[in-house]
């Protein structure tokens, strides 16, 4: 299973592909089977005026990104792990951090 993620062109915000379309909250990111993920990634690579550099994040069985990508995607999903914006995304989305190990 994979997640599809990208940055929005106009403001660069990190976005995640969900059932309802692109969302800013990684907690809603859709887990896609590999075939659907590949097809969507290909489609959105063409839609350059909407998103930039869409790519796939492989998942472990527990639904969190594979070890190789884990820190990076944790940071993208939850914001910087330190500093004044620590927890800002969790608070904005009224949830705990996602992709916890």
């Amino acid at each position, binding site marked *: 299973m994979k997640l599809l993620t990208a940055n929005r*062109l106009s*403001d660069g915000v990190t976005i995640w592909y969900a059932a309802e379309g692109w969302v800013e909250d990684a907690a809603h990111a859709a887990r896609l089977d590999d075939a659907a993920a590949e097809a969507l990634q290909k489609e959105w690579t063409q839609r350059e005026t909407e998103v930039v550099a869409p790519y796939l994040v492989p998942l472990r069985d527990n639904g969190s990104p594979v070890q190789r*990508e884990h*820190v990076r995607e944790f*940071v993208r999903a939850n*914001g910087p792990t*330190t*500093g004044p914006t620590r927890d800002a995304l969790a608070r904005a989305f009224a949830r705990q951090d996602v992709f916890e190990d």
Partner: protein
Amino acid sequence: MYQYDAFDHAFIRDRVADFSDQVARRLSGELTEDQFKPLRLMNGLYLQLHAYMLRIAIPYGLLAPRQMRRFAHIARTYDRGFGHFTTRTNLQFHWIKLAETPQILTELAEVEMHSLQTSGNCIRNTTSDHFAAAAKDEFEDPRPWCELIRQWSSNHPEFSFLPRKFKIAITAAVKDRAAIRLHDIGLHLTPQGFDVYVGGGMGRTPALAHCIRRGLPGSRLLGYLEACLRVYNRYGRRDNSFKARIKILVNALGPDEYKRQVEAEWATMDASRIDPPSDEIERIRAFFPLPDLSDAAFDAAAHARAETADPGFARWVKNNTHPHKRDNHVSVTISLKPIGGTPGDASADQMDVMADMAETYGYNELRITHEQNVVLPHVARADLYALYRRLDAAGLGTANAGKITDIICCPGLDYCSLANARSIPLAQEISRRFEDARLSDKIGDLQIKMSGCINACGHHHVGHIGILGVDKQGVEFYQILLGGRADEKAALGVITGKGLPAEAVPGAVERVAQLYLKLRKDDNEPFIDTLERLGREAFAEALHEPA
């Protein structure tokens, strides 16, 4: 400082219009991302983990108070209320929107600021000595030459699509406070002219620059730089971006052959068209007079009383002030490395305070250093206590300049899409480990420099202790390097021991520091001298937990 004339204003106006048009065409799809990317990089806009990052140029590190206040305004209006000062003396904001960038650039242009060529395969910001015009060991103020180079390199038509980025640094003092030998071109101004060093740099293949010319007259500087750049543009590798810097070319040809090609090229150029006559450098130099420094007598007794009453002030004077040409003045380092803070960050409020302090006590001048601190180059000693109290109240009074907690650190994997590992949390841990002021003062001058990846934005190759984040199957590991130096005795640190997980690094640094205290020949032998005297091997074992 340099004041824009009508030409300079017209240029950045044209630049903002040009980039605004490019943004519009990207948003509409007329430009593909692949075509737009080098254009946005040449205007300082990266796409990072959270949003776009805008890198604003601070030419040769020099800022006026109104410019610092404009940064505060941009932080509040367009970002998250703070900014990050970098090792190339620029400023970064991490949550910028592409669609708002033209407006931001317009507001920067109003105070003679821009983001020109802070990224991309072009000539970047020329950096220099943060104590320029103030330090006793200086031959001449290098900053007029920085401004001359800045203008010459702006939108240079031949050198806008180089094999890779190109970084220039200039010093004109005995001590090298700009790390010139770690630059693509380093220039050392002496009474005989410029000594030209080429082919230095950090990253995957670190190298110290070679001197290819001594005593180059300033009147020939730009032509010589053109020749150096042209040889690089024509023959630098373009097949592999990891082998595309000029250091690779200089190494492959050998410095003598590179010099021969440069000087052959130089001989073909019409100097009268490329080298401005001396009135241009004189015109620029007129913008850099020494300020009208106060004659206020320094009341040593009053100062001593203040130090006795306030030991924190005494520490701050000892650690954060640097001797000045005028005995009744000093240069002050405002540390942006509070214990447990993010190295190099300043909040919008802190930016306003620094602007105020520069106006009240600092003759309207601020400098950003390549160590991610801020300098007030001219401060009357009579004003030090008042200044310290204001800085301390704003969290800007940390008395650790050059000490073990004055850590140079890139944003790392908390922000940067190039990173392998996070760097800031580890810097914070190390900082807290040494927060005892007596301990850190006892250790004395010790430069830790940290990078989250091999691109070396944290200059880890030239830290006395360098720390490099590496990726081990997604687990953050850190290699320790020992023995780097960024000064006139420039040296590259050597990887020592195996990679360590994050939790092992503060202890490793602590054991190295404790071993240094045990082995130094006296209290005056700094860490780097002890390390060089005894060799890295003496410290290698200390990096790992005792069995």
